């Protein structure tokens, strides 16, 4: 193996890649734009949608209640709902989203309230529809307040203190550090995106440097030069790895900047960046550690993509081979965010899943050094095996000149 030759091939391939618009898009533009789009963009969009839904005064129908003018008048007086005339097909109207919710008041409700006999109110809603949920919540809040007022009134009339039915308060207090809180929230999505971008950033260069070379006829040109096939594959491999790592690095950098901007926005909106005890915080060491854990995975992806793409006769064929690879990577990363899936010695040996799980823990500020070592070593072994296969394939005439 000659480092000089590897360097010559690498420099040429990098120069070539940096002049290729498609490579630049997958390597630089996508990771830089994706993170702010996902964090700030989608966050802002969600806030906007929820805000608009909260501002809307939902239409609510009262079913029954003709003999209970007290409660119906109070409901009609609520400013956060609009009571519409009753109709028999209220359920259909909710389903068709013409009204957001309906409340059924049983016969003799006002009288039952005054007499102290039990009565049940039914709230109808469209489960899963946010606006319907908001309307149902507002109706329920109205009836909860009415119930509390009624209880307090009955106790007062009997000279009994309120503490009899309300003996203590319950308060929630977050004890997790801001890093852990942020890790819980973004810990699942960040490794998923970084790992996926690590793969997608390498796909295009891997195809271009192998199947692309075959298709353009430059493979024969380079094979007639004195560079050994091992040096050639290493030169190409380092190019693909650079693309993969550059994509992952830019994704991590973009994520840090996005979270920084997100925290800035939060601080300007809330008291010191705290919103209900939640603070956005992610430390640079954790981000660097995630990047280190992704390194062997990038080697594995680069070598595997190079080997698979080399086997293809054309660009198109290589694309059809590599598309399923994306699914193979997405599935373990999704599994890693499922509830109950936690890092264990067995899972530490499963590539991609282990990196995703350990990255999540690292972002929460938890460092299980034994697992980290196991994952790093096993990922390195897989990466070395993939690289060795890629080198072997470059030696095979039936692969290089497959017709």
């Amino acid at each position, binding site marked *: 193996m000659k480092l000089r*030759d590897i360097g*010559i*091939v690498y420099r*040429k391939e990098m*120069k*070539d890649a940096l*002049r*290729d618009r498609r490579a630049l898009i997958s390597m630089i533009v996508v990771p830089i734009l994706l993170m702010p789009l996902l964090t700030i963009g989608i966050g802002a969009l969600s806030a906007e949608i929820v805000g608009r839904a909260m501002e809307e005064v939902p239409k609510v129908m009262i079913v029954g209640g003709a003999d209970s003018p007290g409660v119906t008048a109070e409901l009609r007086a609520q400013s956060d709902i609009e009571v519409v005339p009753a109709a028999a097909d209220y359920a259909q109207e909710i389903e068709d989203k013409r009204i957001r919710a309906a409340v059924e008041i049983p016969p003799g409700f006002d009288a039952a309230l005054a007499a102290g006999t039990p009565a049940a109110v039914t709230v109808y809603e469209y489960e899963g529809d946010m606006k319907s949920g908001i309307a149902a919540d507002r109706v329920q809040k109205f009836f909860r307040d009415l119930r509390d007022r009624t209880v307090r009134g009955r106790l007062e009339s009997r000279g009994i203190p309120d503490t009899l039915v309300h003996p203590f308060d319950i308060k929630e207090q977050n004890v997790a550090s801001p890093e852990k809180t942020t890790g819980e929230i973004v810990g699942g999505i960040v490794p998923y995106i970084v790992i996926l971008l690590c793969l997608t950033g390498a796909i295009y260069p891997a195809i271009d440097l192998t199947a692309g070379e075959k298709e*353009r*006829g*430059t493979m*024969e*040109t380079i*094979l*007639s*030069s*004195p*560079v*050994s096939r091992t040096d050639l594959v290493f030169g190409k491999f380092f190019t693909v790895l650079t693309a993969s790592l550059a994509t992952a690095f830019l994704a991590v950098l973009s994520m840090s900047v996005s979270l920084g901007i997100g925290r800035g926005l939060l601080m300007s909106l809330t008291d010191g960046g705290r919103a209900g005890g939640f603070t956005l915080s992610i430390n640079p060491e954790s981000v660097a550690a995630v990047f280190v854990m992704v390194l062997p995975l990038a080697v594995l992806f680069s070598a595997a993509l190079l080997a698979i793409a080399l086997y293809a006769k054309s660009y198109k064929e290589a694309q059809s081979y590599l598309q399923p690879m994306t699914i193979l990577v997405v599935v373990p990363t999704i599994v890693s965010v499922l509830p109950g899936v936690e890092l264990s010695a067995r899972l530490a040996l499963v590539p991609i899943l282990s990196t995703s799980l350990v990255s999540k823990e690292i972002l929460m500020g938890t460092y299980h050094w034994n697992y980290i070592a196991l994952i790093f070593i096993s990922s390195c072994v897989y990466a070395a095996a993939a690289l060795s296969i890629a080198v072997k394939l470059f030696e095979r*005439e*039936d692969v290089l*000149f497959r017709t």
Partner: protein
Amino acid sequence: MIETHQLGKRFHDAGRGELRAVQDVTFRCAPGQIYGLLGANGAGKTTTLRMLATILAPTEGRATIAGFDAETQAEQVRRNIGFLSTATALYARLTAEEMVQYFGRLHGVDETLLRRRIDELFERLGMNEFRRRRCDALSTGMKQKVSIARTLVHDPPVMIFDEPTGGLDVMAARTILGFIRECRERGKTVVFSTHVMSEAEKLCDTIGIIHHGRLLAEGTLADLRARYARHDLEDIFMAVVQQ
């Protein structure tokens, strides 16, 4: 110098089983000579030349190029050859100069010498006007010149041309043929494959007729005319392959 001895190549095809693309090919080409491999499409010319260029490994026999064994000293062989075919393409996003420079570096040419060689070659081949133009913006003729410069940048003693004029217009083909003649004049060993009879007639010192992977006849044009009692090379070729 190029020498082959019972050179052969078998391929394994999943559908068709074992295929013998080349068998028992023995020939010799001395410095300052052009050896022409004449054959129809699929005769085994490309496979033979790819074995000489060490792109493919022989399965039988052996080949020696510039004193090095094609199988065991492949790297030294590649350092001593310039290989050009219609299939060998250029890197589209590199400029003409970068393309030649890249191959000069891969051949281990010293940077100062490389700069001088590139200047000389670009001057000699009239390439200075498109020196810094990307290869994907060059015409076919310009691309051929870049390919020639690429094969010559390390000044190899042996040149291998696999149907170098295939698909070229008359002007570009003439440039290539002129360049091959120039190689002979400079004392290089030249092996050249073609299925165009006129090219073989005009250029080759020795002609080898290859058919179904076997070298069926070999000699100077005068030898072949005398042996087969025909004047026209096409008639000779037909007589050899029908024999």
